[in-house]
């Protein structure tokens, strides 16, 4: 029976009421549905989300949505069978269960587990408490402030928030819940000079209320930085091409780490032998200056999760220690197949998706060289403070990053800004070329999302300033040193 339900109660009470059962009855239903499976669960989710955007000084289409649904999963060996639906009713869930049994003749015994109580990494309160009028007023303030500089031709700003409630019921009777707030503020500023236009953007947020992201003390410096970057792009030169020494900035530039080695250390790629790192445990895959962790425990971070979407409590997982590969990230399936322990990395975009091994907050720990020293000791190279994004093919190890604004390093100093750079290299070797690691480790400001197998999840990335003296090539638009491309 479908019916309207008040949502201001904990997820198990909410879903039990929606299904018209008590929690013991629900446990019984799930263990019957998963009979014969080795692992799996019933996942129930309700997500409330809202957003409002300002563009050209106008508020455009405020939106609000409510989605809810279930996902029933049977896992046996290497096989995953998944059925999902937006109709949260016992009859729909039972129908899904019957459908999956069509292809799961094999009978296995269920892997019962004791799930430890997880420590909350964020508040359970819904952030969706700021009236639309208030959010609109804040967006207007941002617009007015950004346009106080006459070179600004357009401002786009978006405030969005969501609150997701989940309930996970396993066939061994385990029931766990989580309530996840997530808010985000994005601003993009476009500047004009001599008929040429360039944009730059900033994004910040985390798992807390709007109050942490909408204050002028938070957004003013972000807007100023975006404006400065857009202005610098307008007078930047074309980027040179070829192999060269590259210095990467701290914080968001850690997205290189996420793409270049993070994906290759996801346990599902490892058991399928679809990563260059599959057989590399115990081996040096980075210079001994490099230690990398994937951490779901950081309080209130965008990539943090109290439990993963299989119900495993989160943790801080060391991936690379002083250059040596010490472990992969795992969900329950990859841990079972590789004889390891689940690390709480089983995540999914929504009830419509099966869990996959996914990153949380992935970062490189600080080294002992001051960042200024790294620049000073580089006679010739390129400084990339940040990336616009990137991608990787874990099979071949090839990766590509887009750097909107970089700076030439000449005689130990940052000189000319350059635009249009692409950084390419190979995962297997790139971190072996790290020869300097800065003291300034930092996690990004909370705007990252990662896509894999058609699913997007919020993540964090970070690193100190690092230097790569080889192993990467830069692709720019500069043809000859004397000739500008535009």
């Amino acid at each position, binding site marked *: 029976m*479908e019916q*309207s339900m008040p949502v201001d109660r904990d997820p198990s009470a909410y879903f039990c009421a929606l299904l018209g059962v008590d929690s013991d009855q629900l446990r019984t239903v799930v263990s019957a549905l998963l009979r014969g499976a080795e692992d799996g669960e019933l996942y129930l989710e309700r997500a409330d989300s809202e957003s*409002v955007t300002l563009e050209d000084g106008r*508020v*455009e*289409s*405020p*939106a*609000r*949505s*409510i*989605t*809810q*649904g279930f996902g029933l999963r049977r896992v046996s*060996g*290497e*096989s*995953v*069978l*998944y*059925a*999902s*639906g*937006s*109709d949260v009713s016992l009859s729909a869930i039972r129908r*899904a269960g019957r459908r*999956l049994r*069509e*292809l799961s003749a094999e009978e296995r015994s269920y892997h019962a587990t004791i799930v430890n109580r997880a420590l909350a990494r964020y508040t359970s309160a819904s952030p969706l408490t700021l*009236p*639309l*009028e208030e959010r609109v007023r804040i967006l207007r303030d941002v617009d007015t402030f950004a346009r106080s500089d006459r070179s600004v031709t*357009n401002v786009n700003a978006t405030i969005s928030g969501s609150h997701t409630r989940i309930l996970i019921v396993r066939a061994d009777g385990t029931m766990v819940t989580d309530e996840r707030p997530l808010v985000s503020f994005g601003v993009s500023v476009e500047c*004009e000079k001599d008929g040429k*236009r360039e944009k730059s953007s900033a994004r910040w947020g985390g798992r807390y209320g709007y109050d942490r992201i909408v204050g002028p003390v938070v957004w003013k410096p972000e807007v100023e930085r975006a404006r400065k970057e857009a202005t610098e792009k307008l007078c930047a030169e074309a980027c040179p*091409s*070829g*192999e060269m020494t590259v210095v990467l900035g701290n914080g968001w530039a850690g997205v290189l780490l996420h793409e270049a080695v993070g994906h290759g250390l996801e346990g599902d790629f490892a058991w*399928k032998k*679809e990563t260059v790192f599959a057989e590399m445990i115990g081996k040096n895959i980075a210079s001994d200056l490099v230690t990398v962790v994937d951490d779901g425990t950081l309080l209130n971070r965008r990539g943090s999760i109290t439990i993963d979407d299989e119900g495993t409590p989160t943790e801080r997982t060391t991936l690379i220690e002083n250059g040596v590969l010490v472990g992969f990230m795992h969900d329950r399936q990859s841990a079972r197949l590789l004889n390891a322990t689940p690390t709480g990395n089983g995540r999914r975009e929504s009830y419509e998706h*099966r869990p996959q091994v996914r990153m949380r907050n992935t970062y490189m720990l600080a080294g002992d060289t001051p960042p200024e020293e790294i620049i000073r000791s580089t006679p010739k190279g390129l400084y990339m403070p940040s990336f*616009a994004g990137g991608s990787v093919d874990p*099979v*071949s190890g*090839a990766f*590509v990053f887009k750097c909107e604004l970089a700076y030439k390093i000449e005689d130990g100093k940052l000189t000319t800004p350059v*635009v249009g*750079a*692409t950084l*390419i*290299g*190979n995962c297997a070797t790139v971190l072996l070329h790290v020869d300097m690691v800065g003291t300034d480790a930092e996690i990004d400001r909370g705007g990252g999302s990662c896509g894999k197998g058609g699913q997007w999840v919020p993540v964090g990335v970070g690193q100190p300033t690092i230097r790569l003296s080889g192993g990467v*090539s*830069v*692709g*720019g*638009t*500069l043809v000859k040193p004397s000739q500008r*491309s*535009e």
Partner: protein
Amino acid sequence: MTIKALYAAGERLIASALSAGATGASSRLSEGESASVTVREAILDDVSVSSDRSAHLRVLVGKREASVSSASLLPEDLDRLATEAVAMAKVSAENPYIGLAGPDLWPADPKKLPRLIRSLERDDGATLSSLETLRSGALALDALARRHRGVARSEGASRSHSTDTVVRMNSLGFRTAAHTSWYGKGVGVIAEDGAVMHSGSDHHGAYFLGDLRSDEECARLAGERATGLLGAAPIATNVMPVVLDNRMSPFILRMLWRAIHAESVYRKSTFLLDDLGRLIFAPSVMVVDDPHVRRGEGSRLYDSECVGLTRRMIIESGVLTTRVAGIESGAKIGMPSTGHASGPSNLTLFPGTLPPEALLRDVGNGLLVTGLMGHDANIATGRFSLGAEGYLIESGVPTRPVNKVTIAGNLRDVFRELYPASDLSSSGSVRAPTCFVGNLTVGGK
């Protein structure tokens, strides 16, 4: 759920919105089912089935708007949703460019739409395939792909089937429903050379099962893509002639589309700001957007705003003949909607007469690109720099494989130099043949 129930829910949403004070409203109700099975190395890897439903409502209060969506179609939830949307729109700000499509913008009288929609042939009427059928299809493709010479193993072969019903209506009287069926198959394989692995894949989708490419072709293409690049290495940085194969060349059309979109023109963030009516390609180049191709992947009668589309030349004899827009983006630059609120329909670059082999012979020495990685071009400036892989062209034939290089240049130059071969690809909604794209900076060692 019956189509009647979807219509009833849509009507209720619009009626509630109007009685709560909306001056106009449009709704979209959808219901769909899907099933897919993936087999890897003869083992069942992944099975997914889903059944989803959603309601979406957009309300206008004068020149203010808001949109809401929900998975519940219960009457009391629909009423609450509509009231909430109107309240949100009221505190929003005026947007002079928004509007609702009236009869003059519809593709036809709504009574005639069902027949016209059927004539596009996007629905074969079949019930959802059984999981067993999909599994045996995936098993066969997985086995074939692994037999391809040089393939070490399979990354997985899939078969899928989905059915969808989408009802659209607005408060000016537009109402119609479209059913679609969609079949998919795909396979990925890995080739190995010592410690180096290369993957290659092929995917194909169609409205009718019989239109899917054969397993043999799918397996061969995936195998060739994986084995062909074994032993690939970068080349030295240089400026050289570049050819994009017909899987990569649609990139050019996607960038063209963004550059001629009314929104980009309004923002002055396109390098083609002043080029309407001007020659931007060679005089032989033609590009068309044709929404009425029978069984065409991007075929449709109307867009998400209920505005009808017609066949439209985008580039005629090298000249840019139109811009493209939805209602709002069009109003911003004073043009009517071209029915493109949901993007291009079937966007095609006309093939030339030279077979690709002959085109490569003409090029002599250069780079044939068969894979691109990375991000789009900067549409404001036309500048691009992308990761690329492919083959070196030496004395007119593709020779050794190349990877880890970048290609960089400006779209304006690419458009001017573009020369299409005759091999228009047979799948996708944005299609182009193999194309010579001029001399680009190839960044490597």
